[in-house]
């Protein structure tokens, strides 16, 4: 998941679709994000590489839409509805997730366990 600027990023991703929940006047998704290119990557507890400035899921509220859609804490969000989230500021990420015109967000997330699973699968069944 280490990102070298200028090089294409390869990752094993999971597609997660979250329906926004209406709470009063707001549409909420039920999780918190951290990270961004304007933030300090060294303080990110979830990243493997401490220079990774991507957007990470820092908290999933229990029983919310995100948890129901199998989003986990520590996931790195790569795309939101087709928009890239690997090189965005924190505020841009927030805006892309909280568009009032959309009720559904389709995320591409990656996590270490996905990579490990694929690696194990490859190892157990060599070609």
């Amino acid at each position, binding site marked *: 998941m280490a990102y070298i600027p200028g090089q294409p990023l390869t990752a094993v991703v999971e597609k997660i679709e979250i329906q926004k929940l209406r709470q009063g006047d707001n549409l*909420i*998704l039920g*999780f*918190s*994000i*951290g990270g961004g290119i*304007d*933030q*300090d990557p*060294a*303080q*990110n507890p979830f990243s493997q590489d401490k220079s990774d400035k991507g957007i990470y899921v*820092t*908290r999933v*509220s229990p029983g919310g839409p995100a948890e129901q859609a199998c989003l986990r804490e520590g996931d790195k969000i790569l795309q939101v509805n087709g928009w890239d989230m690997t090189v965005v500021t*924190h505020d841009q990420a*927030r805006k892309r*997730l*909280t568009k009032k015109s959309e009720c559904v967000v389709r995320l591409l997330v990656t996590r270490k366990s996905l990579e490990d699973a694929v690696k194990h699968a490859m190892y157990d069944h060599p070609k």
Partner: protein
Amino acid sequence: MNQVTLIIKIHLRNSFLYAKICRDHHKSRSKDSRSEKSVTINTPPAEPLLGDSAVRSEQLQDDNWGETTTAVTGTSEHSLSQEDIVRITKDLEDSVGLNCRRYFTLTLAVILGLLVFLTPLAFLVLPHLLWPEKLQSCGTACEGLFISVAFKLLILLLAVWALFFRPPRAGLPRVFVFRALLAVLVLLFVVSYWLFYGVRILDTQDDNYQGIVQYAVSLVDALLFIHYLAIVLLELRQLQPCFSVCVTRSTDGETRHYNLGQLSIQRAALAILEHYYCDFPVHNPALLSASKSRAAKHLAGLKVYNVDGMAHSQSRAMIAAAARRRDTSHNELYYEEAEHERRVRKRRARLVVAVEEAFTHIKRMQEEEQKKAPGDVMDPREAAQAIFPSMARALQKYLRTTKQQHCHSMESIQQHLAFCITNNMTPKAFLESYLTPGPTLQYSRDHWLARQWTLISEASVTSGLKDGTIFLLKCVDFSLVVISKKIPYIQMSEEYIDPKSHKFVLRLQSETSV
């Protein structure tokens, strides 16, 4: 008088021993049951029971307070001890020797000074006396030089008075090398000028008076330059700090550090002594009695009486008992010190309250009030005497507890009280000189006991200070150990910081819920 004082001293020492023996008898009687358990010992044991320690310390304090001052310090309030006699006779002998030396150097200095001042005048006057007819008349340039000679001599006179005619502050063991060198230089200089004058001017009876006057002016100029050399050598050279000396008092370990310049050992010792009188707290021998009694106890415990001839078992038992004994003495010290600390604090609290209350009884009268009510008006001395009794008891008890009672007499306390009242000082300011032991200068003159110091040094005392020089300054009661260390050569480099280079970034870590 010698005989009388010796007798008094012996009597007092006997009484101290008597008290000690009584105490030991008490101990051995009370501890018979214990001695059966432990092996040994016929020696007079100084082994304290923890319960007895309070009593024993009280007795020890009683002994110290009235009677052993002669043995420890050499002065009690009433008697003159052997040490004082020795000191006075030594003072008498040495003062005669020192006075001789002082007068000798004084007369030499006066002779040299007169020679120096009268020489230019003699140079100017002698041609007029010896060959007035042959002499050329003095023109304007020549008379101008007269004024120059006069003023330069006046300046030289003032400068010599400022530098050399100061009251001598100490008598050093060896001659002051730089001064001696300068005196020799001046003498040689003046003698050589006289020689030249005598050969080339007096013998040939030179008639060029202006030349003679210029010669006299050159002499005075050179003397001024020698005076400049004297200032640099005697005063300026030692101003730049070069050595750091560490001065330790041998009796209680008080240490201070000073920076000195390049001085000879005797002059460094003098500078250190001048600092000693203002910086070191006064030497109080009563505070050392506790450690001395502990040392005496250790020594007493180690006496071995080999009565049966069975050396090994006795010695092994001896060592075992000694080891066990040592185990309790630190415990005793700890509790004794804690108890003493508590007692001092309690007495201090009582004293502070008593003094504050006493000070409230006094009020300063203003000018107008003085005219209006001339009834019960007191001057500071009477006011001090009026409020002194209310705090006297608390003060005396505190001084006894901290063992300072011999430093302050009632007269001095009343004087200090009058002084504080006159200068509008608070009770805290009055008490400060009693709560902490101050420097020696603070106390009465008979506490500046040691005006006679002995410099003990392996290197010659006129040689300069070097790195690692050690010498001792001994007086009758204690000695000061001095070690000098060279201040290292400091290599300083610079680093320039552009004021615009101070820039900061914000390291954020925000978390947003969506």
